[in-house]
């Protein structure tokens, strides 16, 4: 029963990793941009949620209504003002620009909020759990987060393959020059993709904040978790991203069960194993 519990916890945390990964994957998919500051923006959103809940006296759920749109606007502006100018043949400029942002955010948060770790209280739901029978119980909060992660993946899937915006995303991704010829404004489309990715960052940030302690240095590891989930699942496959997140979560929780020091290490090793035996990821790229 112990091990079943370990597996279950791993699967549930995998949902959160899938949310981290979806934003990363979205930006890469549409404009070939790897956002090195992805994890730092997640932590930034977590702090934003902390400030919003404390200053307005509202709960984390209400904070979502503020944090998610704020992050989306930030993403849109960031893409238009800075990131669009870094895009091109060369992969170095976008990488360097987001690396610079990462260092600025990390140290900025450190100056503003000190290195102490924080947590966002979520009230009664934090300790509520469902009895699954046989001594197995799951927290309501992790379960709710996992359900939201699945919904997010479904919503993204629908958006990508059923809406005009999704078509615009895929068109600019396939061939930016031709997309422009048929009347798409690439700069705007890219900015919308980043806005959407940043909305996911906002969501992930709040989920992170209520789930565990966070501090300004946490960003890079969240970036790596998201990245690993993307690669394990297979680039360009949203369901793969969820499966990648789950595999990573399970590997981490098995590692943690064996020795607390092995939690993160086990996840990284699982990633390297997938890279060694199936570098294209577990699921194939979706062909539209």
């Amino acid at each position, binding site marked *: 029963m112990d091990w079943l519990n370990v597996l279950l916890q791993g699967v549930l945390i995998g949902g959160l990793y899938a949310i981290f990964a979806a934003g990363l994957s979205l930006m*890469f998919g549409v404009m*070939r*941009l*790897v956002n*090195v500051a992805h994890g730092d923006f997640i932590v930034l959103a977590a702090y934003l949620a902390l400030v919003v809940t404390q200053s307005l006296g509202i709960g984390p759920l209400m904070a979502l209504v503020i944090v998610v749109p704020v992050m989306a606007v930030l993403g849109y502006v960031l893409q238009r003002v*800075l990131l669009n*100018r*870094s895009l091109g043949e*060369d*992969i*170095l*400029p*976008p*990488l*360097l*620009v987001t*690396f*610079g*942002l*990462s*260092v*600025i955010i*990390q*140290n*900025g948060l*450190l*100056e503003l909020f000190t290195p102490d770790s924080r947590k966002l209280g979520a009230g009664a739901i934090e300790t509520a759990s469902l009895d699954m029978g046989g001594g197995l119980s799951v927290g309501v909060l992790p379960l709710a987060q996992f359900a939201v992660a699945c919904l997010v993946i479904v919503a993204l899937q629908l958006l990508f393959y059923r809406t005009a915006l999704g078509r615009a995303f895929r068109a600019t991704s396939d061939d930016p020059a031709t997309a422009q010829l048929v009347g798409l404004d690439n700069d705007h489309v890219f900015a919308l993709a980043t806005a959407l990715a940043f909305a996911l960052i906002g969501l992930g940030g709040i989920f992170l904040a209520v789930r565990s302690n966070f501090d300004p240095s946490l960003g*890079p*590891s969240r*970036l*790596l978790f998201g*990245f*690993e989930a993307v*690669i394990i699942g297979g680039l360009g496959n949203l369901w793969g991203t969820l499966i990648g997140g789950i595999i990573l979560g399970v590997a981490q929780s098995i590692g943690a069960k064996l020795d607390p*020091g*092995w939690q*993160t*290490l086990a996840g*990284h*090793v699982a*990633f*390297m194993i997938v*890279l*060694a035996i199936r*570098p294209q990821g577990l699921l194939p790229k979706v062909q539209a």
Partner: protein
Amino acid sequence: MTHQMRTVVATSTSRIAAVLLGLVAIGLVFAPDFCDRQTLHLLAEIYAYICLATLWNLLAGYAGLVSVGQQAYVGLGGYILFAAALHLGVSPLWAIPVAGAFGALIALPAAALLFRLRGAYFAIGSWVLAEIMRLVAAQVSTLGGGSGTSLPASIVLAVGSTRQVRDNLFYWCALALLVLVISASYSLLRSRLGLALRAVGDNEMAARSNGIRVLGLKLAVYVGVGALTSMTGAMIFLQRLRISPDAAFNVNDWTAIVIFMAVIGGIGRLEGPLLGVLIFFGMRQWLADYGTLYLMLLGALAVVVMITAPRGLYGKILERWPMELAPIRMRVEKS
């Protein structure tokens, strides 16, 4: 009528620059005679950063392997030095080349895995590798686990009986390593391999169709840079006499700052990183009282330079005053 033609690399400016550089290098050998302890330490730190920035530039600017995980090799080198000195009784100075050999040895399987990732994904993958090494180092209890370890007095005393002797030795080692790294990269770039490397940098497809074995070339550069980065790491932590996983595999210290230096100075030119390192140390001394402000400013400066002048400040200088201080291209001249 026909002219006798010949190919040359040197220019008159570069000859003067080479002589000046030689004189400066000789002058630096005697720095312990007229510098205090602190200045020596600062100089050694600057040399280490020039090494790291030059090596990263070789990797990203020439071989197209943009890595954000070079802290893997800095930390590995440091840990190999401590392990060799603490458990095998190797003298710390001799442990530096040992660290280099290990760096190359680890770089081979690392490349086998990481080369499966393309472009930006290679970058993040290399970071994962560094994290794995950091977490593994934290598990090795004989090297202090997560809190790290120090070189005991007996080993330190064996290097040199007084502090001054040791400081001078460490300083000369750092200088020797700098000369090794600079001359190795310069001769690489001027060699046949260097020509192939630049061809790959310009257009990988065209280089491949001209018979260049792109993969082998990239592998060679990755392994060579891994070895020299490990030696630099060993040097850095020998100087500190103390190592811990968080310090050894620190992404900000050994990669972010290094990349910013290289980008601000100018990637794809040997002289660029040198300029970037000097700007960094200038900013750090100047803003010493403001905590991490210099780091944020350095990051912001790197972003601005990347957007407005992708060839860096040295590239800007060259636009204004064309010169060849360290030429690597051949030109045809009348003889």
